[in-house]
């Protein structure tokens, strides 16, 4: 996803002189291509995320579209007050990019697990929150956040994610991407677990369970209409995210709670507990049910209970 991001950003920057990239001394072997092509529009702010974000705000006040870039929590939580006051309050065109969202930096430990970011960012005023599901969505999301006025948060994976979309789907901020239709259950996916959700839908299909799949790259604003339709048309709504409390499941629950609906919500997400051991992303995900098998089993169990 980072490659898709930086390639797309270079394309956009070639056509739009307002685009500036500021990093917090991270992005080695990723950002050089931008820095070489646009030296006047690239800046390494050093290991100083609070100042990086303040500087980005100041630059945006001069009419620029400023991307800040770092790993997992560093451009988000480390400098949260700068994001809130300097960027959001002024409604500035600052686009915050975190690579390694979720457990992409699994073995590196809890400091590098971006598992609260969606919750934190989606409550900020005017903040658009996008977590693309694969490199194709990452490309589309990068274009979309430049078009979208105001603060945006782009949560990327790392590298080597499975390409789920065989062609470019229609992509708009605040809109779900329908992946397949079904009437037994709706699976709503955000971020890098999209390939797992697609795999689970296949597995459920082999059991005779027809799953609707919505890719929901945009957590804020959420596609309420798509959620309401899912709740009206399928008896079970399942959210899947590589994130703890407060993310997609909470956003969907807010919609469901506000409308009369018979549909039940099954949130598949990480526990609100810091992971204290080293392991690869797939293993850490699986340990908390975020695997094709885990999702498949949880859904069929929930449907069986209902029946």
């Amino acid at each position, binding site marked *: 996803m980072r490659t898709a991001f930086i390639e797309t950003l270079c394309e956009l920057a070639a056509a739009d002189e307002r685009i500036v990239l500021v990093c917090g001394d991270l992005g080695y072997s990723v950002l050089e291509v931008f820095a070489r092509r646009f030296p006047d529009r690239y800046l390494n702010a*050093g290991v100083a995320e609070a*100042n990086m974000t*303040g500087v980005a705000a*100041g*630059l945006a*006040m*001069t009419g*620029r579209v400023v991307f800040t870039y770092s790993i997992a929590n560093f451009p988000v939580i480390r400098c949260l007050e*700068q994001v809130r006051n*300097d960027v959001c309050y002024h409604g500035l065109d600052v686009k915050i990019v975190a690579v390694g969202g979720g457990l992409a930096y699994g073995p590196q430990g809890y400091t590098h697990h971006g598992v609260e970011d969606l919750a934190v960012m989606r409550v900020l005023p005017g903040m658009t929150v996008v977590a693309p599901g694969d490199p194709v969505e990452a490309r589309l999301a990068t274009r979309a956040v430049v078009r979208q006025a105001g603060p945006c948060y782009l949560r990327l994976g790392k590298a080597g994610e499975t390409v789920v979309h065989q062609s470019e789907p229609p992509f708009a901020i605040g809109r779900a991407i329908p992946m397949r239709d079904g009437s037994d259950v709706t699976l709503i996916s955000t971020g890098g677990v999209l390939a797992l959700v697609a795999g689970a839908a296949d597995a459920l299909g082999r059991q005779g369970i027809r799953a609707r799949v919505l890719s929901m790259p945009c957590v804020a604003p959420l596609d309420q209409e798509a959620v309401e339709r899912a709740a009206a048309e399928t008896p079970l709504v399942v959210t899947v995210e590589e994130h703890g409390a407060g993310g997609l499941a909470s956003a969907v629950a807010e919609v469901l709670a506000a409308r009369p609906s018979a549909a039940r919500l099954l949130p598949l997400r990480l526990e609100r507990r810091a992971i204290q051991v080293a392991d690869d992303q797939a293993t850490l995900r699986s340990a908390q049910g975020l695997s094709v098998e885990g999702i498949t089993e949880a859904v069929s169990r929930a449907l069986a209970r209902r029946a």
Partner: protein
Amino acid sequence: MDWRKPSTGIGSVATNSALELSRRLRRHALRMVHAAKSSHIGTCLSMADILAVLYDGVLNVRPAEPQWPGRDRLVVSKGHGAAIVYAALAERGFFPVTELDRYCRDGSPLTGHINSHVPGVDAATGALGHGLGIACGLALGARRSGAGWRAFTILSDGELDEGSIWEAVLFAPHHRLDNLVAIVDYNKIQSFGRVSDVLELEPLAAKWRAFNWGVRELDGHDHDALRAALTALPIEPGRPSVLIAHTVKGKGVPFMEDDLLWHYRSPSDAELAAALAAVSGGEKAGAP
């Protein structure tokens, strides 16, 4: 509020001195915090002279066109000094002076910490440690656009405790932002007591020098010294400038001077009358 109405303030700088402006700002700020029963009068009075000199011909701004792209930017990072900043903007003609009566009240944009939804305010502040980073971004933006305007910021001494300030202090000289000017309102008192007791900043000038800034120390209430420094910028070519302005919290009102109490307390009716008389410098404490 009709922000476009012409000001009843001093308007043109040519006809009024910074000294008279500083008196008016002090009177406004005292009335505002009294009427709103709000705090932070000490910090307002401590930067009254800095603001008066800045808005008396130093800052290149157009009150009738607050968003004029060529204007000098001012980020007042010590956002709790909002009352006197609004007073300066009103006096300078950015909005009617009568609006100051609604400070902290009645759905006014004049919030107790500086609000960017007020004409003439370049950045909202209030959480300490934010202004210098924003000012760095502004200065860098001007530099990279080839624009000639400058970015000013006023910092409190207490906020120099914030780590984010020192990130920015490191950043600005590296990028040779000689269009950036920081003014430290060094009144030596922060919210729980003396700076030297809470978290010592000294040797303060040496710290900035060590970070490669052009540094000048001065009396932050001496208009001639302020004007001389603010019209001879940058202090050193190729470097950002910092004026360490030695000030007195509550300056101008003897019973408020150098007293932590006036970080919090709002003056009573009698105290207001005495304070207005004191800051009027022997003139009648009538309407500002």
